[in-house]
């Protein structure tokens, strides 16, 4: 059962995203007013440890694949330019793309945009994603760790509840 407070306008929730291998972390605010169902669903999955890999179509963005059972309807849809720190949910059904991008025929995923000049894209062009959080602190170090993945490859990411702000 969710431990979500009743009045989310007063106490918005936060999540922490961190790389266990280097200790770099950042905190993001959930955008509960605009994306309530996605926030709730992701919150209920936490904590989770996922593997993140650098995106190859979108620019300065990393992504983590979730269990394909995590299928959420579009919400607070972002179709064009995200800003650094945006965190989104995206789902593509089986065979939506030709072949299996990132080795997956079907994919539920979380994307994290860490710098400008980025646009969520796949093999067929720009994709609509559900924007549900934005990193509000410590983005700079987190961004460097993300970009470093171009050279070093994938790494683990811990996503956990970081409490509330009053």
């Amino acid at each position, binding site marked *: 059962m969710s431990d979500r407070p009743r009045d989310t306008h007063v106490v918005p929730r936060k999540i922490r995203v961190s790389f266990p291998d280097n200790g770099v972390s950042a905190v993001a605010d959930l955008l509960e007013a605009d994306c309530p169902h996605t926030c709730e669903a992701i919150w209920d999955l936490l904590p989770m440890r996922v593997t993140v890999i650098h995106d190859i179509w979108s620019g300065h963005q990393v992504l983590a694949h979730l269990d394909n059972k995590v299928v959420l309807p579009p919400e607070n849809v972002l179709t064009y330019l995200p800003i650094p720190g945006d965190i989104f949910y995206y789902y593509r059904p089986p065979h939506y793309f030709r072949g299996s991008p990132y080795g997956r025929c079907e994919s539920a995923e979380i994307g994290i945009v860490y710098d400008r*000049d980025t646009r969520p894209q796949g093999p067929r062009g720009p994709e609509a994603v559900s924007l549900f959080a934005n990193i509000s602190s410590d983005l700079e170090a987190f961004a460097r760790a993300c970009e470093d993945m171009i050279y070093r*490859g994938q790494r683990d990411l811990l996503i956990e509840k970081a409490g509330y702000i009053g």
Partner: protein
Amino acid sequence: MTRVKIALGRVEAFAQLDEQDAPKSTTWLKEMLPIHGQAMHSMENGREVYLVLDAPRQIEEENQTIYQTVGDLIVYYKPAIFVRPEWPRHIRDFLVIGFIYERDSAIRGMSGPLATNLVGKITEGIDALAREAPRMRREGFGQMRISLA
């Protein structure tokens, strides 16, 4: 036709330079060989692997296309924002040489498709590159070497 060897991580492939349609670019490239450096995977174009070249002179537009296909060996100026996190702001782009190892890839600039000099075609070993590039993307990118075969 001149044949070049592309060594990426654990695999090798071979390409034929297109000296007929890209005479200036291929002449320049042959003078540059062997090229050796940090291989990088594209973050914006799809299935592209490239390395940054340290070339003192301007490369002219030649045998250009925005419709890159599997196996294309290309030379172009990649926007700096897609190359280095701490790029000097006075540098607009970097000269790179790269190849396309799978479909659904298209080179783009800051605002749309980016034309590239098509300097050759990979004729042997593209399947090995198509396996090695994703592996290196997961496990970390190493070196690429391009030399006369």
